[in-house]
């Protein structure tokens, strides 16, 4: 047969299961953070074969010989540990109850499976009567699948699969549970598929079934492919071996099985790894160089397997977090950090502004009340000067503020810190000798200087500080002006609020 018709190509496939006690251990092992070698179990120890279009392949073997594992790997349910697998075409697997939802009725399951295979509602309506008729379920079709017997589930599963038209059908012991009439009906269907050039890959314990439909047979034997060939050739060998094996005494049989299992545990895929990595091992130990090479390879056993595993994994998980992804992610993270920083600083300044406005309105309302009475009072000028200095103190803080902000460094909470320091500074720097006229001169100039910086300055902290300082400056002017108007304000209250 030509290579064009190869449907499934399997090369040196191995499958290792880690027999871990807990799930977290298992996951850590898969992610290769930790590995315990003594718990390995090699369900497949290097299997190679090709399957061509229009063939029916039967897989036979004892329980636990790796038949199901092989089927699962071929149907891509899980990936092989090492080796290459190529599949040309759509696969569809059927095992007892595979992909059936137990809570749904048979009819709903048919609908769901067909939907998931991409059929439209109209197509489903035309196909589903055929499926129901083929499945021979009768009235049970409207019962939940959890109430079905295993034979009924197998019938339903086979009926659905037979009508979804896959290129490669994979059947996992499903036919062995059906009765003989349904089995013969299914075989007719399988022959029909074979005639259409479809590939059938199935597992069965029944030698009769295998002889009936298989063209070729794979004999799996404890993780190895013991024989593969025409049905007429392999099946007699297998049956003969089974007979011989059953003749042995019970302890002998158990001993044999445990020996084989032990071999599966201690197996290492070195030879296969070497083959896969295309290293040449000198067969003969003729020269000393060859011998040394062989020795080094033997010492590197585990590394070789790991390397091969990695290579297979690379083929399977062919994705990398590329350079562009890194760049984009880093840029976006920076963008988030920057915008949040700016936004937080902005809202902080706004809050300060509103807080001060509230304070100011409070203060002015407080002032207006005593103003009427205080016009008579006209206490001493010294108190006026204190009120003036307090407003001057706020005014003078912008000069100190950048230094405070710089020393604090970055971010949001610092705004509040600086806020408190501003107030502290105001309280501390009550200097009696500052004259009243001084703030009026300083104030108008300051916003004029700082406002052009506002939009252009990129650093968030600076923007915030600048905005705040200008705000406080303007606030100070207004307050000082208002106090100037009032002249003899009740200064004790004024000082208290600040």
């Amino acid at each position, binding site marked *: 047969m030509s290579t064009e018709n190869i449907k499934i190509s399997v090369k040196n496939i191995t499958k290792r299961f880690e027999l871990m006690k807990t*799930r*977290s251990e*298992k*996951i850590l092992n*898969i*992610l290769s953070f930790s590995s315990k070698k003594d718990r390995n179990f090699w369900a497949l120890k290097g299997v190679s074969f090709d399957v061509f279009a229009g063939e029916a392949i039967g897989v036979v073997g004892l329980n636990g010989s790796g038949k199901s594992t092989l089927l699962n790997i071929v*149907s*891509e*349910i*899980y*990936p092989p540990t090492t080796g290459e697998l190529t599949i040309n075409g*759509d*696969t*569809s*697997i059927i*095992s007892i109850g*595979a*992909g*059936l*939802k137990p*809570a*749904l009725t048979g009819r*709903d399951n048919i*609908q*769901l*499976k067909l*939907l*998931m*295979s*991409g059929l*439209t*509602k109209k197509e489903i309506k035309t196909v589903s009567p055929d499926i129901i008729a083929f499945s021979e379920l009768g009235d049970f079709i409207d019962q939940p699948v959890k109430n079905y017997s295993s034979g009924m589930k197998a019938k339903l599963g086979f009926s659905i699969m037979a009508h979804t038209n896959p290129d490669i059908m994979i059947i996992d012991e499903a036919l062995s549970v059906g009765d003989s009439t349904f089995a013969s009906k299914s075989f007719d269907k399988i022959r029909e598929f074979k005639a259409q050039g479809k590939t059938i890959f199935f597992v069965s314990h029944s030698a009769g079934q295998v002889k009936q439909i298989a063209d070729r047979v794979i004999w799996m034997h404890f993780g190895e492919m013991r024989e593969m060939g025409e049905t007429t050739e392999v099946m007699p060998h297998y049956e003969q071996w089974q007979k011989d094996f059953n003749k042995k005494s019970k302890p002998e049989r158990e001993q044999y099985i445990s020996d084989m299992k032990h071999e599966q545990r201690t197996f290492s895929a070195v030879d296969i790894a070497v083959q896969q990595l295309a290293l040449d091992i000198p067969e003969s130990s003729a020269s000393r160089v060859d011998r040394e090479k062989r020795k080094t390879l033997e010492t590197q056993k585990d590394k070789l397997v790991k390397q091969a595993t990695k290579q297979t994994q690379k083929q*399977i*998980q062919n*994705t990398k*977090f*590329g350079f*562009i*992804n890194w760049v*984009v*992610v880093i840029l*976006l*993270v920076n*963008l*988030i950090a920057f*915008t*949040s920083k*700016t*936004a*937080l600083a902005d*809202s*902080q300044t*706004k*809050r300060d502004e509103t807080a001060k406005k509230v304070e100011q309105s409070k203060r002015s309302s407080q002032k207006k009340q005593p103003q009427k009475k205080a016009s008579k009072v006209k206490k001493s000028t010294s108190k006026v000067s204190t009120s003036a200095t307090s407003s001057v103190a706020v005014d003078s803080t912008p000069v100190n503020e950048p230094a405070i902000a710089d020393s604090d460094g970055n971010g*949001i*909470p610092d705004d*509040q810190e600086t806020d408190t320091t501003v107030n502290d500074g105001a309280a501390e720097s009550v200097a009696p000798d500052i004259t009243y006229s001084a703030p009026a001169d300083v104030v108008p100039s300051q916003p004029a200087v700082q406002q052009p910086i506002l939009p252009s300055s990129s650093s968030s902290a600076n923007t915030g500080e600048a905005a705040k300082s200008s705000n406080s400056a303007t606030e100070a002017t207004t307050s000082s002006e208002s106090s100037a108007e009032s002249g003899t304000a009740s200064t004790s209250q004024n000082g208290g609020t600040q």
Partner: protein
Amino acid sequence: MINAFKIIWEQIIYFPLIIRMVKYGDQSTYQNFFLGQAWKIFNPILQVSVYFVIFGFGLGQSRTVHSNPAEYLSWMLLGMAIWRFMNEAIMGGSQSIKHQIGMVSKMKFPLSILPAISIASAIWTFLALFILGTATMLSGGIGVSQEWPWAIYYLFATIAFSYSFSLFNSTIVILIPDYISILRVVMMMTMWIGGVIIKIGTFNNVIGDILRLLPFNYVVDGIRDAWLRSDTQFEATFLPATLIFWSLTIIFLLVGSFLHNKFKKSFIEYL
């Protein structure tokens, strides 16, 4: 980058399949209940009415922050619509692959549309609450805002964020089983930090500022801003919040699609 585009492309070409799966799922999920799909609407309404009584009347939210109870109710319903939708979409989408993998791995089915199916089936909750909120608004004498087309944008934004976040989560949930418990707690908290029931704008401090920038508050307050009445506080931080929202969405999409593609062939081994 290419992975992410591929995944988005898959959503587009399999869109009919998503719709069909949603329709089917709606039928089958509520099959065993007497009231059927009505539960999808009853459940959120019961939740909202409890919150309305406790927060609206008990804690006086409808008097202090909002002008009247009808306004508060419609305000809460709109926020609840988006939040319930997001919560259901993210929780469902994050677990979708884990729950379906046994069935899906045995047939040819695009795994990346599973979160999308969960998101799409959560849309009914949104519609029910949204329509209810609009009805309350209109009966309370408040008209739909003139900026209503923006509501479509916020819905789209919610869907985009939900998808990329669930895609990211769906792989992590399989790798780290404990993650789902963390996610559940976090999603429950987003109702409070997202300002669904209590107005975040009333927090006049740094906490309020930070919460206003989070993606949850962005969509919750956004849809209110667009549909109910404009919210100056929300609009003040609109630009930074938008930038943060979409940056997070893209980051989750990039990392999520990378993880998804890396592990999708061996998902079943991790279970």
